[in-house]
């Protein structure tokens, strides 16, 4: 992990609408130069959190720091360094893509005209740049939103469900682009419900449920948290007795197959414990859990990491 201060940090960030708590003390740290996934089921508070980060709504309590500064005090200046795609992409429907980007450039300030053409090319809209946005498909609007977000070459990208409306090819291109941006040193904060996408795109994730972070960390670490070892043994009954003495729960799958929820580096200890009971292994292999499985497990139960 980078040693530089976090690009984005939230501390105890809460938002209440009447009796409903939309966000409950969100604590996040997004390190510089990382692609950070923000996961949660519908209604978990992801869009509320992003709206708070971007200053569109005021927090009930807590604070947001962007680039080490209190975002409320330095909002306009901080946001000049941020590019964002919001849920429900919005453009002037009576204007062309190019004119929409010209307006974005005017607001951002200091964007050269050549950069508009460059971003249009980057998102594959050069050929349709003169067409009015009202005639665009959802996927084209999403591409235009990405162009608008990248227009001023921001240091931090905040993307709320950015692949909505994209076809599979578009999603793949988008994923590649995000990876490329991450490699180029940009920080990307992306909310999504497409877990496979996030797993492939992101270095780190935070999983939210009911306005709270219930798990966070490097994707590799989270996936490893759900690691298990699959075994085939010579004597199942003796094996179950031997494994009962170990700190990890083991279950009989079928026949001579067992599964034990233990990290990979416990394999030696497990094989030794079995050997001491004269139980021998036909097979011992790690079983990796996908982020999707972790997500579903965490969001369907009360688990706190």
């Amino acid at each position, binding site marked *: 992990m980078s040693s530089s201060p976090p690009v984005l940090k939230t501390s105890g960030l809460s938002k209440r609408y009447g009796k409903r708590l939309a966000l409950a003390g969100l604590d996040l740290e997004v390190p510089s130069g990382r692609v950070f996934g923000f996961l949660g089921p519908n209604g978990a508070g992801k869009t509320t959190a992003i*709206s708070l980060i971007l200053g569109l*709504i005021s927090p009930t309590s807590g604070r947001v720091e962007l680039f080490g500064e209190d975002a409320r005090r330095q909002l306009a200046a*901080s946001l000049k360094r941020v590019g964002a795609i*919001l849920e429900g992409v919005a453009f002037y429907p009576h204007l062309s893509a190019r004119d929409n980007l010209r307006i974005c450039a005017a*607001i951002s300030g200091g964007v050269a005209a050549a950069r508009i053409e460059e971003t249009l090319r980057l998102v594959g809209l050069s050929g349709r740049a003169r067409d009015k946005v009202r005639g665009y498909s959802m996927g084209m609007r999403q591409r235009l939103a990405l162009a608008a977000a990248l227009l001023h070459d921001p240091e931090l990208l905040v993307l709320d469900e950015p692949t909505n409306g994209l076809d599979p090819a578009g999603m793949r291109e988008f994923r590649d682009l995000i990876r490329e941006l991450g490699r180029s040193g940009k920080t990307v904060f992306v909310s999504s419900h497409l877990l496979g996408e996030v797993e492939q795109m992101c270095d780190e994730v935070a999983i939210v449920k009911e306005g709270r972070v219930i798990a966070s960390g490097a994707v590799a670490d989270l996936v490893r948290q759900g690691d298990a070892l699959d075994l085939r043994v010579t004597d199942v009954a003796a094996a179950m007795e031997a494994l009962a003495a170990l700190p990890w729960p083991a279950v009989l799958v079928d026949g001579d197959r067992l599964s034990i929820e233990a990290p990979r580096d416990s394999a030696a200890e497990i094989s030794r414990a079995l050997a001491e009971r004269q139980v021998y292994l036909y097979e011992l292999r790690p079983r990796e859990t996908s982020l999707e499985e972790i997500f579903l497990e965490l969001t369907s139960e009360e688990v706190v990491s």
Partner: protein
Amino acid sequence: MTVLGAEILKTTKRWMPYVLFLFAVAGTAVIILLFGYTAWFNERDEAEAGFGIESFFTFAWPWSLQALLDNGQFYGSALFVAILTSSSVATEYNWGTARGALIRGQSRGKYLATKLAGTALICTMFLLAVFAVGVLFSVIATAIAHKSLTLDVPGGPSVPEIGLMILRAAWGIVPYGLLAFMLAVVGRSTALGVAGAIGYMFVEGIAIAILRELSGIWNDIPDILIGTQVSSLIAANRFGGVEYISFAPRERPEATDLPDPWMAALVIAAWCALLLAVAFFVFLRRDLQSRDV
């Protein structure tokens, strides 16, 4: 491109200002050519004898300036400024583009001020164009009627005084435009801005007439209403002691019954400040959520 240039681009590429412009030109033609020249032409014998003389002073240069500015102040406010202002504010909510601007680092104050300045600039350009078309109609009608085109008539204005007359009428438009602006910002709705501003203008004219007939404190209330101040400015635009046709639903402004124009201008400024304060107060503190998209 500057942010103001961006604001003008957004609005001038919509069809709405051009449609409103055509309506305004049509309205001008109705007043100058139909109720002015045509009515005078059909009754010119009586008019020469002193009957139907209002029609003549409605189309004939330079008296037509009074009719143009009186009608223009009311219908320019109601049908052009209120609609265009409300629409340009509220559609940004409906399209979600207000959020798009704010997340790019444009401060809320600057966003709203730019929107206001852009809308004001566009309204000014279009209304001046409508006024120019109205003057052109008047000049043509006056020439066709074989009357002389001169400012040298009894009580007639000089060129600088015409400029002052335009400014008075324009200042009378501003509070109603800001009323529409404030209502559209607060209500996030074009309909509320338009209906609120136009409704207020019509109701206010009637209310002032009724309140003037009452006694006590009721009789004093019109003194602080926008309409009374606007009437004072319009009354100050009158010259030559002539009558003209006005379709503005208010009593014919007579300077003797109204506050001093400078005082009226100050009271209008106070109303403008109040309306702006409400709009900015609400917008600077409002949560802009995704359902505003």
